[in-house]
């Protein structure tokens, strides 16, 4: 067992943010999410946090652990020494709902504009209305939180939506390439990235949004050159 002091942001819109510290003992082979769940179950049922799968598939438990964007389910207790204070805060750049919960609507709106989810129709079973995404991106929003451009430009598409556009352009399957290129080539698209590179560092799923944005830039340059040469219809 390991005892940690979880210093968690409490509050919400209209309520000032305060830090509340909970002492909790959990098995050192577990993760921070388990510790937060134990706090909720044994000490404070009013604590707000999101979680579902516990294995980095749902992307719901993204918070800032000691300032850094991480999934709580991927943050081992063993990383912290006995008696350590671990500060948990909600993600940046999203509307704050309360405690550790943010509203991820801005990310979902962007994915909808790109026409994600990406569905393999041949994988749909009879009667199912939705397919599964086969992207690495779990849409946890960590990259959107870590990117300072997202926090300063309200229309910037952001790292994960741009990575999604790259993936769709790689394998369009009937998608409207023109509109995808218009989104990526917009003043608030791939060209708005300032290469701060925090998205690459915080991504828990090896998406590498920065590499995708660079790929989009090369794609747009080559496409523009082909258009100028008249080889492709505008």
């Amino acid at each position, binding site marked *: 067992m390991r005892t940690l002091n979880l210093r968690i942001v409490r509050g919400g819109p209209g309520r000032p943010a305060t830090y509340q510290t909970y002492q909790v003992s959990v098995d050192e082979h577990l993760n921070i999410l388990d510790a937060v769940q134990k706090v909720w179950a044994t000490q404070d049922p009013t604590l707000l946090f999101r979680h579902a799968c516990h294995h980095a598939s749902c992307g719901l438990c993204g918070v800032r652990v000691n*300032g850094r964007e991480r999934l709580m389910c991927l943050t081992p207790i063993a990383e912290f020494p006995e008696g350590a204070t671990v500060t948990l805060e909600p993600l940046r*750049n999203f*509307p704050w709902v309360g405690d550790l919960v943010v509203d991820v609507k801005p990310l979902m709106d962007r994915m909808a504009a790109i026409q994600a989810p990406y569905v393999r129709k041949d994988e749909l079973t009879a009667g199912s209305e939705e397919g599964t995404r086969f992207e690495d991106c779990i849409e946890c929003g960590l990259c959107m939180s870590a990117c300072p451009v997202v*926090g300063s430009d309200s229309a910037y598409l952001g790292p994960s939506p741009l990575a999604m556009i790259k993936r769709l352009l790689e394998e369009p399957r009937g998608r409207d390439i023109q509109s995808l290129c218009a989104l990526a080539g917009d*003043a608030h698209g791939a060209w708005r990235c300032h290469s701060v590179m925090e998205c690459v560092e915080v991504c828990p799923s090896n998406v590498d949004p920065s590499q995708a944005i660079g790929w989009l830039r090369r794609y747009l340059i080559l496409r523009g050159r082909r258009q100028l040469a008249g080889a492709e219809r505008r």
Partner: protein
Amino acid sequence: MDRTLSSLPVSEHVARASWWRRAAAWVDLHGRREGWLAFILMRVTGIGLVFYLFLHLTVLSTLARGRQAWDAFIALARSPLFVAFDAVLIFGMLYHGLNGLRVILLGLGVGSRRQAVLFWGAFVLSIVLTAVAVRMILMMG
């Protein structure tokens, strides 16, 4: 010309935020690592170099005030404090140039997973070359 698509999703809470709150997103160093440090150093050295450009033109204008004024400046330029300013200037130029190469590569999607190594490479090389340059300045007396 505003090339923004009318259909582009907008983060309402960011759009409603005051300019200083949006600007604060750039200097929020909480939990940041090499990428952000490289970004901030790039801006600081860039602003510093623009400031130096005007300072340089002002210093050159002393030539128009005659030989005495210029000689007085040269005497000042040989002081240890001025050499320290030179070192800061040289580091700024080197870092801005070397990190500029890093940003060109990263901006085109090359080496993103090595971005921290590239940053430290540019940073250490800038320090080493600055030390060499300062030594040469001191040797020239």
